[in-house]
């Protein structure tokens, strides 16, 4: 052990905490080294003062008064013993909630709910991003049309509105509705020959409405306008067929 190490030890440890080897070294070394002996002298003096501080046990000015004030304070409390605590429902509930297992279980359930919710939100966001990427170049009407197959009209309109971030105009909405009607009409015409009277009446009404809203066509797309024109011709042909059929029925 060097002088520096011994001096550090003298400052940081008490003599009674020295291990036997260090103590033996200290005894022999102090006789030879003036520097370490000086440090030992200073530390011993410091230790003497600290011992004196330790021996000076602070005394409570009025022990009796302090005891009485403590007892008076606790006498005012409800006795919180285990028996008393378990008497009421809320005390029992408190005891149960204080249990470590219950606290851990509640934390786990809470974490599970949070993680599930976050996962659902993440999946939704992922689906929307995928959809956006797939239909980035499509019009809002066409984008909304993707959802139409599995939705009712209200869901569809809501989806359309959300996809447009609330910026969709009434013209765009009208165009979309006409597109829906056109699609309905196409489906109807596909099976025209097997239609009953009620369906034929509905077809006429839809056609009339379709014609009425036709000025807003062809929706800015060449394909749409060709399709609309073909549809228009088809409908006219069917109407004529319908009128002929009606005239035949009217003859006696």
């Amino acid at each position: 052990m060097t002088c520096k190490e011994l001096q550090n030890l003298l400052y940081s440890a008490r003599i009674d905490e020295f291990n036997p080897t260090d103590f033996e070294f200290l005894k022999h070394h102090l006789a030879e080294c003036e520097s370490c002996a000086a440090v030992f002298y200073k530390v011993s003096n410091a230790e003497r003062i600290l011992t004196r501080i330790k021996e000076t046990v602070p005394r409570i000015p009025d022990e009796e008064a302090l005891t009485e004030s403590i007892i008076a304070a606790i006498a005012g409390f409800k006795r919180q013993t285990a028996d008393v605590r378990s008497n009421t429902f809320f005390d029992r509930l408190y005891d149960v909630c204080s249990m470590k297992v219950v606290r851990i279980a509640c934390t786990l359930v809470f974490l599970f709910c949070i993680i599930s919710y976050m996962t659902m939100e993440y999946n939704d966001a992922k689906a929307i991003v995928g959809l956006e990427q797939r239909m980035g170049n499509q019009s809002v009407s066409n984008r909304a049309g993707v959802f139409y197959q599995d939705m009712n009209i209200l869901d569809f309109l809501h989806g359309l509105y959300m996809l447009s971030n609330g910026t969709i105009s009434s013209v765009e909405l009208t165009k979309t509705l006409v597109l829906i009607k056109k699609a309905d009409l196409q489906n109807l015409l596909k099976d025209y020959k097997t239609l009953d009277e009620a369906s034929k009446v509905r077809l006429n009404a839809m056609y009339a409405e379709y014609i009425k809203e036709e000025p807003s066509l062809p929706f800015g797309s060449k394909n749409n306008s060709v399709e609309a024109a073909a549809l228009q011709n088809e409908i006219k042909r069917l109407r004529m067929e319908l009128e002929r059929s009606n005239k035949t029925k009217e003859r006696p």
Partner: protein
Amino acid sequence: MQNNIPIDSLETLVEEAQTGNIPAFEKIVRRHQAYAFAIAFRFMCDESDAQDIVQESFIRIWRHLHEFDLGMKFTTWMYRIVVNLCYDKIKSNKRRANVFTRSNNNPFVENCIGHIDLEQAFSDKETAALIRSLAGGLSEKQRMIFLLRDLQDLSIKEVSDITGMSESAIKTNLCYARERIRKKLESLKVCQ
């Protein structure tokens, strides 16, 4: 107040107190309030604060006595409560905390120490002045560790149980605190 506890061992008193027996608890208070006061006084260096802490400690002990595990040492549990309240008091009392941080160059303290007669027993005020001066520059934890180990003579294990720190951390902080305090004593020239 009736005081009819037949056996006076600490364990019995604690068990009795756990059932709501106030006289038993009063005996515990009488037996241990001086120790609690010593810790609080040496840490806070203020008589009034120390009394407040002792009172609050025993009230807290009473309120949580049903949670006390009889397999544990009662005094360790009690010291832990006192120590925590000391920390709380220091935190809530910024003025006092500032006194501690300034104490290195506090002329009042220096003057007070200059008049201490090392050959006679210290008064409480002299002790407080000395501790306040010596503890200047130490963190609250270092001060508490030094106090519990070197002034209250508790073992490293007990200090560890009370403060919740590991034994190695206790030893490291204790070495640092002792070195600072001994060098401080040198610089105050009370060792010569």
